[in-house]
């Protein structure tokens, strides 16, 4: 297995309260230094709540946002989107809102032709053949090609969005909440389609979602994002079953599950930290039942072998705090 996507100390901050001249009033660190690696053929799930920076991260990976710091390597080469035609063949993006990601004034054929023409310079006949192939693989009828986006349901439009991403023949797909706008019965169809395409074409996915169960069902590994940082990474089957970071545990306990009694897993008054005025040390400490003075002083770093967590007091298998206070590594 080879590393196809490598993020090294990737950060993004946005100035807020811009003034015409002079410095902005504050800076929001949407993505704190993030290190991640994605292997060929792997699905890396990224979960987190709104405002945790997952979409900002995704948009940086496809060059739609320039990073503030750090580097992104695709197939060993630094990200370079100077030539959009070359870049689009390496990595593609599937958008959250399937309808608004299609131009309302273009037919589906025009939408599908753009990547084939611009990225691969195909002739008309070659394009028609390729579109037919792609449409067959995503279970769409070719008669849809002459229609406009508003004529489609969410599930169909999302399949068109996936088809467009496939047309670029990129090996890496960034899927940004690809099913959260869909009904559950359609959501399963699209998730299964994504799994089939991956197996068939040997794709690598970065699957971003706020839905823990969906991420768990499709991913090999999962990274949990909180307040712009990765707080835990591990194999999908372990991460929610035996979370090491208290935030992951809180997420897992908050998801409504059939057959579990209704309990508020934390105090009702808690709110996310203020991004303009971030807390010192661990960003989660105000909500954390195990926070100590160490947590306020030092920012915990990701530590551990396979299953890594950024916590001074990680939980063990049974959910209790590990007795030995681990030093940050």
């Amino acid at each position, binding site marked *: 297995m080879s590393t196809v996507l490598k993020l090294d100390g990737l950060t993004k901050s946005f100035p807020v309260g811009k003034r015409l001249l002079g410095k902005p009033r504050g800076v929001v660190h949407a993505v704190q230094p993030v290190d991640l690696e994605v292997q060929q053929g792997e699905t890396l799930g990224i979960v987190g709540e709104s405002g945790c920076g997952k979409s900002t991260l995704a948009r940086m990976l496809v060059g739609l946002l320039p990073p503030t710091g750090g580097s992104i390597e695709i197939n060993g080469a630094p990200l370079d989107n100077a030539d959009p035609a070359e870049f689009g063949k390496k990595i593609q993006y599937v958008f959250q809102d399937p309808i608004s*990601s299609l131009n*309302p004034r273009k037919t589906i054929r025009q939408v599908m032709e753009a990547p084939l023409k611009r990225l691969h310079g195909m002739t008309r006949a070659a394009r028609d053949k390729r579109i037919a192939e792609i449409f067959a693989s995503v279970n769409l009828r070719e008669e849809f090609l002459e229609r406009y986006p508003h004529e489609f349901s969410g599930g169909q439009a999302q399949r068109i969005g996936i088809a467009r991403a496939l047309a*670029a023949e990129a090996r890496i797909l960034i899927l940004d909440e690809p099913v959260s706008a869909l009904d559950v019965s359609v959501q399963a169809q699209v998730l299964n389609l994504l799994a089939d395409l991956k197996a068939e074409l040997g794709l690598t996915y970065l699957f971003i979602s706020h839905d823990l169960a969906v991420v768990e*069902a499709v991913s090999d590994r999962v990274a949990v994002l909180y307040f712009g940082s990765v707080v835990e990474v591990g194999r999908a089957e372990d991460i*929610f079953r035996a979370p090491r970071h208290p935030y992951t545990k809180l997420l897992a306990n908050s998801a409504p599950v*059939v*057959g579990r009694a209704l309990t508020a897993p934390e105090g009702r008054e808690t709110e996310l930290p203020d991004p303009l005025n971030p807390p010192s040390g661990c960003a989660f400490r105000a909500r954390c039942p195990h926070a100590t003075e160490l947590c306020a002083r030092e920012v915990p770093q990701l530590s551990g072998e396979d299953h890594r967590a950024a916590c001074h007091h990680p939980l063990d298998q049974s959910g209790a705090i590990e007795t030995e206070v681990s030093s940050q590594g």
Partner: protein
Amino acid sequence: MQFLTLLMRNRLAAAGGIVLSLVVLLALVTPLLPLANPDVTDTANRFLMPGAQGHLLGTDHLGRDLLARLLHGTRLSLAVGFAAAFFAAFFGAAIGIIAGYFGGRTDNLIMRGVDMLMAFPYILLALAIVAALGPGLTNALIAVAAVNIPFFARNIRGVTVGLAHKEFVDAARLAGLGHTRIILTEILPNVIPVIVIAMSTTIGWMILETAGLSFLGLGSQPPQADLGSMLGEARGALITNPHTSIVPGAMILVIVMGINLLGDGVRDALDPRLRSGALTRPMPATRVERKGTIPDQGDGEAVLSLRQLQTQFHVKNRIYKAVGGVDLKVAPGECLGVIGESGSGKSVTALSVMGLVASPPGVITGGAVYFQGEDLVGAPYEHLRSLRGDKVAYIFQDPLATLHPLYKVGDQLIEAIRVHHPVGRSEARARAVALLKQVRIPNAESRIDSYPHEMSGGMRQRVGIAMALANDPEVIIADEPTTALDVTVQAQILSLLDELRRERGLAIVFITHDFGVVAQLCDRVAVMYAGRIVETGPTEAVLNAPAHPYTSRLIACVPELGGGRRRLEAIPGLPPAVDRLEPGCAFAPRCLKASAACREGDIALEGPGMRAVRCIHPEAELEEGVA
């Protein structure tokens, strides 16, 4: 084609269009008509009255034929007006698109320049331009176009800024398109309707401005006639020979009126917001056209009971049966879950209770809604209004959309209280603080003066709940209240609702698409598909042993946390469109067990006790459930 039909339906616009076409036609054929030379003077016959021999409209102060001058002048004025509008639109749109698309510094520089242009009174600016370039019709045209560029630039920039951040533009970028291509193929087609709308409403204005410059002697130069210079020349004889002013004046009036009426029509027909009926004000309560007998109340214990409720949407010649005969009831202190996918009719059912479905197009066509024993369908509006928010309150999905952005949340709460109860402001404020405390908003005394945008999603939804609780309602109808929230916040809100209903004996109708939420909060659940209830019963019984194939397969296709990596059980196909429902079971086309009998006639919702299912081949034998 649809555009033309829409336009012609607007009678004023059609009249404007006809008048304008006549004028344009006349202007086009002017050179072919047997008219006198408009520039030949004949001082012997000056100021002839209209109807004089050989001069249908008389002559002016130099004895020139007014009819000939009018038609030639109209031709010139129209040409200059249209040309000015075209140039203003072209350059204004180009500037606006570039500023809006690139944003940042480019946008700032361009738009501040445009602002500076706008800071001058337009006539002063036009005068300055003409003064710099010298008088003449071409220079007047340039001046009028330049003066109007800022209007177009600002308009188009606003639209472009919205479009430039749309996902389809990002998608085009990833498909390998460069900036020029994105502007031309992605942005421009979406901007053109706005350009046309802006043009149609400003051409008349530009014709007036050109006429104004000519009137001042800065536009067309003698002897050439345009409508403005004709007016200017006739000014001296306004009292003695008014017809020389009235003739060009009337023409300007006709042209500008025609263009403005047509322009408004074009705007109404093209603007998607207006086309979707934003101008048709919905009625204060849903229209009721009940046919057939009115069902009785049934169960006496229920505080709210829906009986065979039918709500339809009548759009043109289509009838969408959004709710096709729904029976629901909820008792005090009980929580009823209504579950279904989008388009299943769950929200329309909820809105029908208080007559909140927008009419047109919504119509309640049958059934009854009993609140404390009284049928609310067809109740007078005043009565419904007194109940809304007082006895029956709603919580909606998006609190940002339901709270007014310009008022403090406290003021909105106070208003909600004072609408139904004649209490003083300070007492209402105290009550509002107490309500915010009840929904566990920290620092309620200071948070009451926050604006909605200053609060997080979870806090806003708490305000939404506080508003619903404001008047101690008997029933709360919550329409996907936690769908827009994060899971940790959702857990907080759900446990809050659960506590409130136990403390206050509230009846809650909880509409959702999430089985996990239903399982945790609701006593009973009703599953909706294509506008009808397909299964109902105590929550545990339905979730543990679903009887309808739709319920069981819907449960199966939701991944559950802790299941590990796996393939999901998808339901093939799509829910049916409710304007083309086939007879029999609506789920039959997607059902593995469907037989011929499923596609014939109506299937009843039947079962023992509280359990009931609308299926010929249920998955499990129904057992009488206990709540």
